[in-house]
Every structure is written in structure tokens, then in C-alpha cells.
């Protein structure tokens, strides 16, 4: 099983960045001035939007050979591997915005860490969860 990040998943991250940048911009506006608030808000949004978009170019979740493999990153490539046997739980999180875009967040827990995958399509999340839950039941 292999799933990639859809465009709407990237859009979700970009919209969240916009929200966060707006909050920072308003804070700077209130503390300093309108001009610096706009600079801070738009500048931060531009930076985060570029970083989010590039980060998600090679985003891929794969289940292969009893392992869960996560490929992420652009400037810093990251490949994470978990043995499926030791996945202790998964959870699915959706917000109104993510449901509108047809994407969501899935967390995969093992004893040592939790992996958070943001922006996968709801269909891929359901497929991945059913696969992981079947593995847990099978054990």
C-alpha cells in the first residue's frame, strides 16, 4: 500500500500557515504599528507557504514488508520506519476546514514515538487505519 499527499493536503497546511501568520501579524500590529504588522504577517505567510509546499513534494506513506515507511521533507529529507507489529494505536483527526478539503490528520503510535501525518486524503486515512487495525487484531 502506498499513498501520496494530495494537493488539498498541501493547501490545508498553507491555509493553517495563513491563519498563524495573521495572528502574528495582528500581534505585531497591536504592539508596534500597522506597517510592521503587515510586513510580519505577509512575510511569515510567504515563508511558511513556500516551506510547507516544498516539504510536501516527496511526501509518501508506504506499508511494505511489515513496515510502515514515511518519506517526508525537502531541505532535510527524512525516512521513518516503524515495524507494524509494534504499532500500539492510531487516531484520526479532522477539522471543519480539513473536511471541506477532503483531507485529515492521522497519528500512528508506537512505544517509542508518535508519527503525525497531516494532509492525507480521508480515503487514504481510512485505508491505512483499517490496515493497521487489522494488523493489531491479527496479533
Amino acid at each position, binding site marked *: 500500500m502506498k499513498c501520496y499527499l494530495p494537493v488539498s493536503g498541501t493547501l490545508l497546511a498553507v491555509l493553517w500557515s495563513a491563519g498563524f501568520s495573521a495572528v502574528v501579524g495582528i500581534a505585531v500590529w497591536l504592539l508596534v504599528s500597522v506597517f510592521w504588522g503587515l510586513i510580519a504577517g505577509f512575510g511569515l505567510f510567504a515563508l511558511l507557504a513556500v516551506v510547507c509546499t516544498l516539504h510536501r513534494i516527496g511526501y509518501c506513506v508506504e506499508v511494505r*514488508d*511489515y*513496515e510502515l515507511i514515511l518519506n517526508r*521533507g525537502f*531541505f*532535510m*529529507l*527524512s*525516512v*521513518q*520506519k*516503524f*515495524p507494524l*507489529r*509494534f504499532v*500500539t494505536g492510531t487516531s484520526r483527526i479532522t477539522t471543519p476546514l480539513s473536511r471541506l478539503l477532503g483531507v485529515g490528520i492521522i497519528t500512528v*503510535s*508506537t*512505544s*517509542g*514515538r508518535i508519527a503525525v501525518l497531516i494532509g492525507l486524503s480521508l480515503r487514504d486515512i481510512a485505508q491505512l487505519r483499517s490496515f493497521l487495525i487489522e494488523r493489531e487484531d491479527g496479533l
Partner: protein
Amino acid sequence: MNTVRLHPLHFTKFIRYGFVLCVFPVLRALLVFDIAAAWTAFTQSALILIAVTILAWLLWNHSEISLDDTCFSAMYGLIIHRTDTFARDRISAVVVSRPISYRLLGAARLTLYFKSEKPLASISFTLPRAQAERFACELLPAVQKPSVFEPAGFDRFLFVMLSANVIATSILSVMTAYRVTKMLGQDFETAAITGLSQAAELFSAWLPAGVSALVTLVVFFALLSVLRGLFSTTGFTVSRSGGILVCRGGLLTKTERRIAVSAINASTLHITPWARILRRYPVYITAGGFRGHELPLIAVKKGDEKFLTRILPEFCLPEKKMCNPRRKNWVAYFGKPGGVAGALIVLWLVSRYALPALSSLLALLFFISLGPVIIAAEAFFREGICKNTNRTFSLSYSRFFTRYLVSLYTNDLSFELKMHALAAAEGRCDLKVRTPSHITYRLRGLEYSEAKRLKFNI
């Protein structure tokens, strides 16, 4: 089902502020032999003392620990009742420790460590001594067997030297002196500093001023840590009964550690400079929430690492080459230690003209900083990971002055390969290995193709 009450000492954490409010003014007056002031302080705080005692009694009366075939339960709380239940098969280690203060009151601290750190890594209770020992025997039963490791004579001396942890002891002693000063109002800090200054004056007969102060501090904390190691390792024995490791020892604090061998995630040989000189490597183990970093489990002789298989049958030394030094980036290894050494040599050169009084101290620090550079050179050729034929992983990494040789016995791991664009082009990555004990091992400059091929055991 066995049911007992917690020891009243367990509740001192709830009543200690009230207790401090009552007892320490009395103690302060007694320390300066002012009986009248002590009596006045006592009569003034009698009401608080009575209220605190009643509260402790009520908390004790509403506490209960029980153990049955499948689980361990603890009930406590006065207004809000709380019951914690833990499955027995989740327990990876049980530690019963009896500090002097506890022994005087017939109490023992029972600490349970769990295989997985979520939701809890460990939990501690203070029980009557007999009950604590009985629970430990029932949770992880072990038959009395001959010791596998019982250092005596010169081996004992070496074990004490290896288990001395200078950094931990120095932090602990500074914090203790600070707390005692704050509570009792006696100026222990000034007395300690005066004593150290006098010792530094002795050293300054042979050493420059700045160096003598540093040497005095290091020698003082080293002696303190050796003393602490001596007390911790009195009567130290390690035995194995079936699938349970039992480790006992201690003088001021008697400790018994029971560890389920099946729950052991990793064993680590600490190859410190001191261990290289003594040709003995201390071995620490982790089992879920049990980190075991206070005291090594055992010390193995150099060249006789196979002795460890008597306790950990799956242990083996790395069977293959763990890395390819030709593909490594020297900056990742020599950048930080080399940078520090370079900065110190530059400062030394400048101090020769600007501040000659500091020259000898900077020279000493420079020579000390060469240690991590040498260790980094060793790591350049040895840091890496391999999978052995017995399905365990061996990895080696270095930090500061120490090289660590880790054997991983669990497959409940996660691997993370990280590389920036340049490293990716050169086929090189950093590998992070995470264990259930939430310990992360970071290996630098591995071959990406080899790291990607690492497989978990099915």
C-alpha cells in the same frame, strides 16, 4: 488477593510544607542550643503539627495496595478517591530501596517500571518493608541462586571507580548544600567554599592559581563520587534466576533491583577513558521505563565481553563492519570538538600577551578539549550499526569522552534516516534509532543504501 496499607512515610510529600513550618524553626533554635526559643517555636506550631498529623493519619487510613493474579492496584485519596490498576505483565522491573531514614521507620520504597513508557514509565509507593519485599517477590519471583557477579577485593575497587559518576554527584551535592542552607539557615555554603579555598591554597604551591582552583574542585567532586560509589556498591551481587535478574547492594541505601530479562530493550557498554585505563567496561541496561543509569549492572573485562552472555544470552559483539569511513563527512565528527579546541588555542595565544594569569588555565582546558577530538577520530572509524545473525542490532556511537557500544534486543524500535540535499547527493545520512525507553541513539554519516536496508525482525 493481598491487600496492605501504604506506610505513613508515603504521605510526607503531602504534608511536608506543614511539617517544615513546624519542625524547622524548632530545629534551628536547637542547633544554636536555644532551648527556650525551641520550646516557644514548638508551642506556637503545635496546632499545625496536630492538624498535619491528623491529615497524614486520614490519608494513611484511606490507602490500599492490592495484588492478585493479573493486576496490581493502588487506591488512595481522601476527598477524591483514585484507584490505579496496572497489569502485572506490563511490569519490566521492580526496585525496592531502603534509605537510612526509611530503615529507621521500617519502610521501603517500591518502584514499578513498565515495559512501555505510555501512559506511565514508573510509579513508586512507600510500604512497610516486609510488604514491599513480598510484593517484589510475587511480581517478579526469583529463587536464590549463586551470584554471577560479586566483585571482591581489587575487582570491587575497580567497580567502585567505574560506577562513580562525577557529574551527577557534583550536581546532587551542590543542590543538597543549597537546600540545607535554605532550610536550616546555617551557612554551609560559605563553610564549604572556605574549606575548598584552603585546599586550593595547598595545590597552588605546585600549580598556577587558576589551575589549582579547578583541580581542587575536580578532585573534591571526584572523591565525593568515589565515596558515593563505595556506599552504593557495598555487598553488590548480581544473580539470575530463570528470566529474572536480581541485583542487590548498597550501604546507606540498600537496593534490590529485579529486572525481567524478556523486557530488556538494550544493554550499553560505556567505554570511558577511565574504563580504558582500568580495562573494565561498565554495562548498563534499559528495560522499558527502567533506565538503570544510577549504577552499572556489571563490569566486564576487556576481551571478555562474552561473560555478559551469562546474564544476557542474546548479547553479542558486532559481527560485521558497522560503517564505511570513506563515505563519512569529517565536519560532522570534528566540527564541534575541533571548534572548541581551536577556540581554546586561540584564546591561549591571545592570553599570553593580554592576560598571562589565565594562560595556564586555558592551556589545561585546551589539553582537556583534545580528548573529545581523539574520541571523534575513533568514532569516525567505528560509529555505525549492524544487524547480527542472532537478530539483535549492535550500534556504536561516541559523545564527548565516551564511546558507547549498544546491543538492542527488541524489535520495538523506530528508525529515522535524515539527510540534507548535499548528503543525499553523496549517499550519506544520519540515523536515529528510538527505543521504547524513549532513548534515541544518533549515528552520523552512514551509507544511505545500507541504512535503508536495515530490516526489523518479523
